[in-house]
């Protein structure tokens, strides 16, 4: 039985997870320079040790009416190139390209290991927009963990 590991975090009091292989690091207290005229989900650009990282507001993506930008914890994703260098690309679902991206979240949670057969489709009561960005859900003991499809979060046409 193959298992998956998720880095979990919360956005607007919901718990979400991203495949741990996709995550490069987590930063707290990030500050971004806004980009005028950019898509509303783009919080701005961040200087990560000399690399320019585009920071995306996940809450805006999940609920387009939400523009509260008080959060400042950032999940830096590995680019496809990075994964390929580490020979991990094949094991990760979804392609996000070569641009360095960070996702702004509320709080970080623990890393959770789940069996693949525990994954199920998103429930119907989930908002349409949210469903579009979700890969799977996992019913954990005390809460529902939603696995985010990063490639869809980063595809603003979704």
């Amino acid at each position, binding site marked *: 039985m193959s298992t998956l590991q998720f880095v979990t975090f919360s956005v607007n009091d919901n718990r979400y997870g991203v495949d741990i292989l996709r995550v490069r690091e987590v930063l707290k207290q990030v500050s971004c320079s806004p980009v005028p*005229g*950019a898509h509303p989900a783009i919080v*701005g650009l961040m200087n990560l040790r*000399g690399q*320019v990282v*585009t920071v*995306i507001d996940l809450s805006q993506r999940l609920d387009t009416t939400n523009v509260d930008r008080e959060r400042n914890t950032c999940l830096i994703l590995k680019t496809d190139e990075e994964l390929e260098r580490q020979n991990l690309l094949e094991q990760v679902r979804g392609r996000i390209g070569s641009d360095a*991206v960070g996702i702004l979240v509320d709080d970080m949670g623990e890393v959770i290991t789940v069996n693949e057969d525990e994954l199920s489709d998103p429930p119907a009561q989930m908002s349409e927009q949210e469903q579009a960005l979700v890969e799977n859900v996992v019913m954990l003991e005390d809460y529902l963990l939603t696995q985010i499809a990063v490639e869809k979060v980063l595809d*603003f046409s979704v």
Partner: protein
Amino acid sequence: MNEYDRELLNEFVTESTELLEQVEETLLGLDESASLDPEAINEIFRAVHSVKGTSGFFGLDVIGSLSHIMENVLGEMREGRLSPEPRLIDLLLSSNDRLRALVLDTESSQSADVSEAVASLEAWLHGAPPQQSADTPAEASEPVAEAAAAPAVVADNSFELTEELKQDLRRHGLMLYRLNLSTRTDITARKRSLDAFVKHISSVGTILKVTPNVETLKAAPESEDHPFTVWMSSVLDPVLAPMGLAIDAARIEVIGVDGKVAEPTSPAAPVAEKKPPVKLAVAEAPPAPAPAPVTEANPEPVDAPPAPEVKRPQAHNNNETLRVKTSLLDRLMQMAGELVLARNRLLRRLDGQQDKIEGIGAILGELNGITSEMQEQIMQTRLQPIGTVYGRFSRVVRDMSKKLGKSVRLDTIGGDVELDKALLEGLADPLTHMLRNSIDHGVEDPDGREAAGKPRQGTVRIRAYHEGGMVNIDIEDDGRGIDVEKVRVAAIRKGLLSSEQAAKTTDTDILNLIFRPGFSTAAKVTDVSGRGVGMDVVRTNIEKLGGVVEARTRLGEGTTVSIKLPLTLAIVTSLIVDVEGQRFALPQVGLESVVRLRPADVAKRVERIRDMDVLRYRERLLPIVRLTDVLGMDRTYVDRETGERMIDRRGRLSDRRAAIEKMEEDTLEQRVDDDDRRNALSNVLRILVLRIGRNSFGLVVDAIVENEEIVVKPLSRFLRDCQCFSGATILGDGTIAMILDPVNIAQAAQLTFSDLSRDAAEESHLERVRALRERVPLIHFSNGGPETFALPLAQVARVENIPKGDVQRVGHKEYITYRGQALPLVRLHEHLDVAMTMEEPEEMKVIIPNLGSCPAGIVAHEVLDAREVELEVDEATIRGQGLIGSAILGDDIVLLVDTYGLMSSAGVAVACAGEQVLQGRRALVVDDTPFMRRVTHGYLADAGMQVEAVSDGLEAWDAIKTGEFDVIVTDMRMPNLDGAGLFARLRGSEELAHLPVVALASEAPKDCQFDGHAQKLDRPELIETLTAVLGQAQEEAA
């Protein structure tokens, strides 16, 4: 051969070597796998084809012929007509080796003989595979022996390369080496035993043979020097072999040609003797000491053409250059940039604290120096000589001239001028296009040239040179040039310019219209240059690279297109500016200047034309936009009372002077607040003047922070839609700034330059024109509301002080008694679209207009001023019945009252004497001052005349020639052609000599016998004069 040809040749060598290596690899793959991959064959087919093609370019016929036949064979294989059987692969491999050797030594390649290799390949093409080679390996007819020729040729005591060994070498990717050694240098001097030496060699390869053999050498007296030769195979490539073997490269000869798989064979000292495949063709050399260079002692036919392989690379100094991935360089470049930033941060942080740590100053100094130097050097790695693009042009010129039946010589200068690789790549297409244009449209056909007294052969010259930190590239031809008049006509026909504008626009400006989209003056579209890439694309491409392009021409002599480019794209000197607390970087390249305007100057320099704010700059009018507006950012100001940041909603810059439109809504209080707001914002308006091609525009920012060298980082795909930015950068303080892209900002702001350049053309004589404009005495008054008004003093007869109580009302109308008559009063707010007067003063002013008879008085609360001003009337911003327009008086905006319009909207009839004679007569009003022109026009039209108005004598002359007039009313002082000049022309013309001309002047002009004169703005006098003049003319005619 000139220097860039040499450069190119070197490139050919490097490239072909790579290609052939790939061929070899693929061939080896075919050798092993039975199934044929058509794509693989196709790939090597293309590689060989490419080598063939390029060799043709350099005239390397021998390389060409060998690659040609290889290509044919591969072609047959690709089509499945030849199967890749091992013998054929072998043949191809050896031919490939031969080819590679030839490529590596292009100089002597021409004298090489490849006929045998060609013949062997040819045989396969004719379906006659030479059978015998399979049975007898290493036969003379076997091309391997011929092509790779090495063993037979170089062996001092012959070493036979068997088929089996070859297969082995090939399969394992081994190189075959011959080491020319001597016991003294390699054994004794190195203080090691022969065994130790053999062991060392065996650790990096397999010894195939030692001559004389090891035993013999061991037996030989140590005191003497014995030359010996070692044959070995190794995975080490020729570059690494000397290091691996610790033997001087000069004594290592490369025999075999494989290299890839790492599988060193097991060591064993006397392998040579044990390994069965290694056969010695000749008996072992005598154990006795042989003469140092043994080669000549060889009984074999050595004098066959020396195998080129042996001479390997030296010919082209390939080892001086190294191919490095661009991505690696880019990364290095980025990191160097980041290092610079880190250094800057460090220096900033330690600023002022350097005394605390002893010696840190020196260390920082050193770090500083090294960092800068390193950045510079890494930048250098990206630079490439422009000569590398020149190469492809000779081909273009040759093909083009052939196609067009022209004779053109290409002259390239400055091939060593270096440019950033990215720039160079972006430059190739525009340059090619311009070259095509020059040949197609510029250079005449030989007969045409001869007829024009030029040499039959035309010349196109590409010249690159450095100037002022920029790279300049000129494309010059000695062709027919561009007929600027034709361009002018085309511009009018296409509606780009009106005929007047076209007449005023300079030749240079007209010429550069060819860079506008869809502009072509070529009489016919040829298939050569009509490829859908116009000069506008050229300009766009050049501008994308941060450059500018401009054309010059001389009819009949030729055309030059000049390009200016920055040296590099990756590191850019930029101006860091601040807008709403956010930093932006603006590359210096496009920056023409920075204009700082104090509030008092804003009124003078910023105006509003056709719904755009416009800056008066060096006799030009530049559109200006606020960066905040272009980027859609909120503008804020700090509220004085609350100290909070508030959103600023003032629309236009020119509102600083023209806030009138909003006054109706704004209360007085708000206006005060507005003023505060302006003060709270920094008092100075900062405008960056940016250049795009030939146009410029102003970009308003809040503050200018500093100049900084920035490292350009590309934008992520998420920001591709943000057209206004060309990239991002990390500033010295670690924050990120977006890099502004002037071209796209102008686009986003929807600036229309064409119109402005037209305006600018008009405005270019501005100063001259202005000097000639009349200063108009105005009376400036208010009616108690927020607006102020003005009337020309000439239209005012008197201003009466009337106590409030003297106003009598009859029905809705108000009257005063004036000179014993009832004079109706006109209140401005009742007839104009202006604010209502709230309170009446105890005593008011009544302005009695000078209208011949006195139909009505205009009520004013206060006369503010009466003075002479140079009037510029803005007729567009504020208009309405009874108003001429608005103008600036000191710091105020005033509304100019149109007395006649006001009176007619007030229902007051304005009677005029002599109108009978004037009815329906045609008058031409000539005045350069728009206000005067308008007023005079109004007077005459009201008097029942048909009026046309023009702005100077020249225009008048044109109008008179095409239209019919009964009388000309002209100002005296005008640009281009003044009143006296116009008069002289009219009198000098037969048909027009009797056309009556009335001067607008207070006194009869000297030297000219005008038919009459009238003071400006004095309606009664003008009407009187015209009545007299036209009446007289009528009498005379009768």
